């Protein structure tokens, strides 16, 4: 069963974060017999703690530390944002991994690069990730059931000429598998799945790692700084425990998977005389090239009831617009995904007030919804940095988050909303709202992989260019955003990174 390691045991790999990246990497390493200490800032919930009430669950698992600027919608809890995610797991596409080659730089100072790997290299890891997560419609797993909201998406999509439409590619069990039950269409996926049908590392990777006897999870252990030795290699992680006491866990290697804000903060906050700008930051890229995806949302009042609250939150994807054709007025592509929101989520998305607002909310049973996620070009000015003087309750510098939509994203959003409107109107929708959806639930790019050290923070394995025993293991490592939801790719990269770490250790080069 679960091990306990001494603080001065320098043989362990310390993984910071227990979500899609950190939880997966921890388990993959532990399965190979590599000792891991996983530091998780949040506490460990059980399924019994999950209630169908979003504000309650946001208080239990949301990340509420002080930020300046619009903070991403992420979690401080064991399982990280895999507790909150919707479960959509499309693969990235070949042209997206060659973003610079395919699109060229956009006007206005984008910082696109190609991924330092091909889709062929990534494909076997996508296979492993899909199998691990139980992605519907792959590896012999049945397709997802078609909810009412999906049926609207699919019927309207067909009417306006779309062909690549699926209810699948969801990491939600359509039927019982690997000790987890099938989806009961509860509808509160974003508050944590109350039965564990949706994949989360809380009840998959973490307990699997604990069974190996090569893994220790330390909860309420907030990593604040990574130390290094005289040779410039990382040597330990300082963390704050539930009582506020600081400890240092010695380490053979350190993997950072705190989601973009904390990954940036930890790297920048670990500055020293040798690394005055923080770890991995000799070329100044840490915190920069922050991408969130071009997000959009569309809600329509349909002629008859849909009852979109019945069933999983997201249950369908249209892929037809995920290609590159500058004729549409923008580079890159997007996916249309069905989404259902509770009354408050519906109201918040639509925004505004008055009778032109309540014509939607008063007809809640007749609403259908689309969530749009599209390629978002990296820009140096979209960044996370640390405030020079302001410190938070943990005495850490407060992160400053700066993000703007590139004109390419605005053009893409306009196109996607026009398509969404046509889709709904083809079925007789009487009212349509479409707009931005600035929730910040897809977070990428602040410590990106690059073939050339000049262009990023880490190499093709997520290993810092500057420090060979420091790894980036979350969405922060993405060179560009592609169009689809990031979690599947985070998991695939974590599995791949674990192979690399194990191989390097076997070769005694780590």
């Amino acid at each position, binding site marked *: 069963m679960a091990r306990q390691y001494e603080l001065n045991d320098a043989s362990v790999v310390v993984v910071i974060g227990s979500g899609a990246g950190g939880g997966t990497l921890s388990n993959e390493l532990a399965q190979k017999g590599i000792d891991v200490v996983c530091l998780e800032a949040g506490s460990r919930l059980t399924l019994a703690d999950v209630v169908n009430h979003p504000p309650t669950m946001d208080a239990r698992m949301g990340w509420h530390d002080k930020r300046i600027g*619009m903070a991403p919608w992420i979690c401080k809890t064991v399982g990280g944002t895999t507790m909150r995610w919707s479960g959509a797991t499309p693969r990235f596409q070949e042209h997206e991994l060659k973003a610079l080659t395919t699109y060229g730089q956009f006007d206005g100072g984008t910082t696109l690069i190609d991924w330092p790997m091909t889709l062929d290299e990534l494909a076997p890891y996508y296979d492993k990730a899909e199998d691990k997560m139980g992605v519907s419609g792959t590896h012999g797993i049945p397709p997802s059931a078609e909810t009412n909201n999906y049926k609207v998406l699919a019927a309207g999509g067909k009417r306006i000429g779309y062909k690549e439409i699926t209810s699948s590619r969801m990491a939600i069990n359509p039927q019982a598998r690997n000790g987890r039950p099938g989806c009961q269409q509860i509808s509160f996926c974003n508050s944590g799945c109350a039965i564990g049908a949706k994949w989360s590392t809380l009840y998959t990777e973490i307990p699997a790692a604990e069974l190996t006897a090569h893994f220790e999870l330390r909860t309420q252990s907030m990593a604040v700084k990574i130390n290094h030795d005289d040779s410039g290699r990382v040597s330990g992680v300082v963390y704050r425990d539930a009582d506020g006491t600081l400890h240092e866990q010695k380490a053979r290697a350190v993997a950072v998977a705190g989601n973009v804000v904390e990954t940036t903060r930890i790297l920048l906050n670990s500055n020293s005389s040798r690394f005055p700008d923080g770890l991995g930051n000799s070329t100044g890229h840490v915190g920069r090239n922050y991408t969130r995806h071009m997000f959009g949302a569309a809600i329509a009042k349909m002629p008859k009831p849909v*009852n979109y609250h019945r069933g999983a939150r997201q249950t369908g994807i249209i892929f037809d617009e995920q290609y590159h054709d500058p004729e549409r007025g923008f580079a890159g592509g997007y996916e249309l995904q069905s989404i259902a929101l509770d009354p408050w989520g519906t109201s918040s998305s639509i925004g505004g007030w008055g009778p032109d607002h309540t014509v939607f909310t008063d007809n809640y049973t007749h609403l259908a919804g689309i969530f749009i996620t599209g390629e978002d070009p990296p820009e140096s000015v979209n960044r996370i940095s640390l405030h020079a003087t302001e410190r938070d309750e943990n005495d850490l510098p407060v992160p400053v988050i700066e993000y703007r939509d590139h004109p390419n994203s605005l053009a893409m959003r306009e196109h996607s909303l026009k398509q969404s409107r046509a889709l709904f109107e083809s079925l007789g929708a009487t009212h349509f709202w479409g707009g931005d959806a600035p929730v910040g639930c897809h977070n990428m790019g602040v410590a990106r992989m690059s073939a050339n050290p000049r262009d990023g923070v880490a190499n093709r394995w997520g290993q810092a260019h500057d420090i060979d025993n420091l790894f980036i293991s979350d969405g922060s490592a993405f060179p560009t955003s592609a169009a689809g939801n990031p979690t599947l790719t985070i998991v695939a990269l974590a599995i791949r990174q674990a192979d690399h770490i194990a191989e390097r250790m076997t070769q005694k080069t780590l």
Partner: protein
Amino acid sequence: MQEEQTTRRRFIVAALAFSGVAAPLGSTWLKSAAAWAADDDAGLDELGRMAQLLFPHEGLDDRVYGGIMSTVMETTTDDQATQAMLDAAANTLDAARETSWLDLGAEEQFAVLQELQDQPFFAGIRETVRFHLYYHPDLWKHIDYPGSSKEFGGYIRRGFNDIAWLPEDE
């Protein structure tokens, strides 16, 4: 926490630039407004009435709106920022016309709100009301939203796929 949520999920009103809202606002509004005006005797105070005009659900009991604002006032007595916001709302509404805002007709009340919608207090009240109203059990009942479903086994046997009016295209 409340303010944090509001800030964090501040869905941008500018997004309405993309809006395709085509509601026949005038007629819906006037009819409803008259109905609420007749309800004034029920005794909604200024903030309760503002809440009602922000998110008008015809047929929803006035007391839901009044109750929300009473709850907000009572639970934030130590919260200076919220109290200042509530005071600013009442004072600004009343200063808008010669007559106190509550004594104005429904159309005029609405017009005043439109004039004031860019004032700092307005977004705060709007988002506070939005949160409390759309998590209110009576509102849920009014719009046929049942809330928590896990104790009923979700919707897998309760209509998650029962839509029957969609066209049967090939």
